């Protein structure tokens, strides 16, 4: 069967790609567009390592077909830093040592960005539940939660 032609927006730029209809958005990002910052940890929506934002909504790229991206706007980890400036969340993750191996980090950052866009002043509990779909096996989550809370405070101008 002919591959599907999809026109979409990735990190603000218009993007066209061809894909098999069975390919997930994650497959397309990684294998077709070579945006390998989104990781495959489970391919079943259980680990959050492939978190991306689609039309402002946090989703797992492994649970969306590439063809479903038609006409939508996708944000990935590769678009998080602006030019040569890191996003405050990225800076805070570094300062707080909120990563060890770093493979879950892109997913956590995208998820945390989505949280702070909706809720600039989350409680620790809100952060923990929002990020419950992002698994981290290294850190025990402590420093990640602290980094998100600290970034929120900084972004609020605190």
């Amino acid at each position, binding site marked *: 069967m002919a591959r599907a032609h999809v026109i979409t927006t990735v990190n603000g730029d218009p993007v066209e790609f061809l894909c098999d*209809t069975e390919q*997930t958005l994650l497959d397309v990002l990684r294998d077709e567009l070579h945006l390998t910052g989104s990781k495959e940890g489970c391919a079943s*929506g259980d680990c959050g390592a492939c978190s991306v934002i689609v039309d402002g909504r946090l989703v797992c790229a492994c649970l969306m*077909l590439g063809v479903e991206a038609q006409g939508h706007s996708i944000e990935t980890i590769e678009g998080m830093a602006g030019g040569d400036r890191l996003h405050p969340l990225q800076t805070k993750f570094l300062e707080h040592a909120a990563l060890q191996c770093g493979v879950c980090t892109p997913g956590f950052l995208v998820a945390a960005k989505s949280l702070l866009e909706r809720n600039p002043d989350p409680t620790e509990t809100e952060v923990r539940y929002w990020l419950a*779909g992002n698994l981290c096996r290294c850190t025990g989550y402590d420093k990640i939660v602290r980094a998100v809370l600290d970034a929120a405070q900084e972004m609020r101008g605190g």
Partner: protein
Amino acid sequence: MQYEAPESVEAAVRLLSGGGPRGRVLAGGTDLLVQLRAGVITPQLVVDIKRIRESREIREEDGMLVVGAAVTGAELGEHARAKSMWPGVVESAELIGSTQIQGRASLGGNLCNASPAADTVPALVAAAAECRVAGPNGMRRVPVEDVCTGPGQLSLGDGEFIVAFELAAPPPGSADAYLRFIPRTEMDIAVVGAGVNLSLDESGRCTAARVALGAVAPTVILAEEAGAALVGTECDDSAMEAMVAAVRAACRPIDDKRGTAEYRTKVAGVLATRAARIAATRAREAR
């Protein structure tokens, strides 16, 4: 695999009943894509209903809440009116999976995946919700409890799909609640789920109650005797005990990786009690 994203109900019905390969309906895809990936299903046609307006919107019709089958948990949770009318249904939708899953998973998908452990189904059954089913012969209404006939099995005919759910305006003094038990705080499939919808009169006496249970039988069950045990009472401890006995009598669970039959039966009673107490509190506040 052919992928289609029709923009009207009629077009979707045509695709699904078009004499070609039997199609699978794609809403949020949070179950469908996992099954595709695992090779559990190998559909030749996938019909995405997210571009159909009726499947994607939440609206009120004559006081009735109509929720599109492809409306996501997150969207329902952000709908203030839905939350005030049917807090139990909304909380059940918000319990499905992670934030990421919330951004995709839908009521229609949760029902049509036909898992006995689906979170929204006990809440929808307790709320006496009905489905708007579109098909080659037009639109028909089906009570939610009649849609699933067994694990992975639906009563829908060829070419039929669920467009939306209807939730009647709750009468005064009514409220619903949903609780589920999972081993962790998030990310698990319900080991047991309990939805309770009840009405209290001005004196606080229960005039109607529906109790629905998830993950304790091959399909979500409406435990009619459990509801009946509350009717006519003030939902006091002895009424709760009678309801728990009826809940446990209605359970026909299995042992599996997520819990033992014994455990599920026991915890179904615990959750039904807790959900009934929440519903009763909400009902009193609603009066």
